[in-house]
């Protein structure tokens, strides 16, 4: 960000003071602030003020029905915050959110890396295939969740049909409404959280293009000489990946981890549309939505949103404490 700017010649020499005429730099500064003003107004009104307001609301006992009668400042209380921590559902939702975010982040980046590596070499039709890779990410979330729901439908979904005819499933699997299923492998019984795993698979499917885009861009920027030199020195493909490509990708992967974790942690649409938060997939953001709309409990919803953000900030703090160096490299 430290672009060296040529020192601009002042509009007037300092020996002739005239307060009405500004230097070019001064005029630029003024123009800059003017040009940015509309953006700032919108951002402050729709982002900054609401965030501040959430904090205020979190300390008030407010219901949706009261909102027209009561002003901004009511009686302040800590009940909402204590309510967040004393309700058993919150810890479940927080655990689910964390699990969902971690698995979703790792799988989407992993799949993106695999896709980027597979599509590295040129072949006829690669541009089209690359276009296909981005489809899950650009397609409307409502449309793709609806298609997934239909595909996974126990009555007429294609997945269960294939499972029954090809893999010989005796009973259709209710992927999105079944909390858990017992699976026995080598006579060991496992409890598999079916719906949660399905939602995680959707997460990996929908967001791997994001990682794919970043990683592909980074890979094209790696100088070909690096790998060529390693090849001449006798490095095999795995060795070249491990010692040449991987170190080059590491900063981007560190950045992607942060971004994906933030986005997944705050994710609402996917889970709400797929399961509605049922069958053991209730994450905190879905819980907040339910509090807000079904119960109209603004105070509790705000308090949960606040706690959610605080947890995220703490986690990010820990991450930057340990991996901050990689992120510095990425920029």
């Amino acid at each position, binding site marked *: 960000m430290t672009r060296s700017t040529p020192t601009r010649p002042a509009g007037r020499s300092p020996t002739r003071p005239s307060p009405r005429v500004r230097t070019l730099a001064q*005029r630029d500064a003024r123009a800059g602030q003017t040009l*940015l003003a509309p953006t700032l107004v919108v951002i402050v009104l729709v982002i900054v003020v609401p965030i501040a307001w959430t904090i205020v609301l979190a300390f008030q006992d407010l219901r949706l029905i009261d*909102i027209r009668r009561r002003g901004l400042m009511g009686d302040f209380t800590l009940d909402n915050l204590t309510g967040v921590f004393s309700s058993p559902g919150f810890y479940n939702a927080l655990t689910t959110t964390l699990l969902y975010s971690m698995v979703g982040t790792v799988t989407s980046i992993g799949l993106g890396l695999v896709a980027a590596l597979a599509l590295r070499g040129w072949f006829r039709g690669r541009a089209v295939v690359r276009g296909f890779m981005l489809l899950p990410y650009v397609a*409307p979330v*409502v449309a793709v969740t*609806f298609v997934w729901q*239909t595909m996974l439908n126990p009555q007429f979904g294609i997945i269960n049909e294939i499972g029954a005819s090809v893999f010989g499933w005796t009973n259709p699997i209710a992927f999105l409404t079944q909390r858990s299923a017992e699976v026995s492998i080598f006579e060991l019984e496992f409890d598999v959280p079916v719906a949660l795993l399905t939602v995680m698979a959707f997460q990996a499917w929908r967001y791997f293009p994001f990682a794919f885009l970043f990683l592909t861009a980074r890979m094209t920027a790696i100088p070909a000489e690096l790998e060529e030199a390693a090849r001449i020195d006798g490095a095999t493909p795995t060795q070249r990946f491990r010692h040449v490509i991987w170190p080059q990708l590491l900063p981007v992967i560190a950045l992607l981890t942060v971004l994906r974790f933030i986005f997944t942690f705050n994710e609402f649409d996917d889970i709400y549309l797929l399961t509605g938060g049922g069958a053991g997939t209730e994450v905190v953001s879905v819980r907040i939505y339910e509090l807000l709309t079904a119960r109209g409990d603004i105070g509790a919803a705000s308090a949960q*949103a606040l706690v*959610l953000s605080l947890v995220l900030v703490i986690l990010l703090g820990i991450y930057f404490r340990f991996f901050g160096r990689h992120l510095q490299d990425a920029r």
Partner: protein
Amino acid sequence: MTRTDQSRLTVPTPARRRWNRDAVETRVFRVLGWMVIAVLVLVTAFPLYYMVMLSLRSLDQVVLRPGLLWPAEFDVSTYVSVLTSVADGGQGFLVFLRNSFVIAVLTVAVTLLAAVPGAYAISRLRFAGRRQVSALFLAVYLFPAILLAVPLFVFFAGIGLRGSLVGLVIVYVAQTVPISIYMLRNYFETVPVSLEESAAIDGCSRFQIIRWISLPLALPALMSTALYVFMIAWNEFLFALLFLAEDRDRWTVSLGLSQLAGSIEIPTTVLMAGSVLLTLPIIGIFFLAERLLVEGLTSGAEKG
């Protein structure tokens, strides 16, 4: 591909052994690469194919033969049914399409109106608070949408803008302006300063420079940014759900589809047709924007 030539040139003796580690790995990864590509194409394209296919079948047929991969009959009555108005016994998606379109276009217009000067200012002009502004924009995406949703919901309910398209557009603009500024800023920075300086020497004011020099040069970038914003606004779900859910006449396509998806009266295949109508414009725009993005990157070279 010059790979084979190089290996012949550089490693004369070990190349005689056919099954060294390098050769094995190269072969294994070549096969694996093709398998991965095949699986990825199947996984990304199939759901969309399935969507189109299901929209052309009747539900009875789907329940009867769920494994069919090619529609035995082409039944376009689903599209008719989904588009006709509720009064005529359809689902009224035509109204939803209009709402989505109006919201998306308004969002694009207002976002660009704010983002173009903003991006120019950040890329070209030095002023107090420039760095803090960039940090503020980053912070926008750090907070969950649901956190903003609570007070915005309360606020718009309070001033009676809840349920109005205008309120929704304002929220969308705030969500899309930072990313637009980021995209446009990168392009403005590729416009050579010398061009602007020569215009300034010729007597252009700052605003004339933007209008006559920078904007025309950044036109491809402007287009791709506009399409990107359009996609975000068209696809958005949460705020549409919070603000517009009560009044069916104001539903967007996304909202309409999600609200109707749970009902048992409407056949899934009819809603699949609605799903296709929701997705098609985005897929079209996406392939358009991909091309424009490349154009935007390669254009704007300085001459002389």
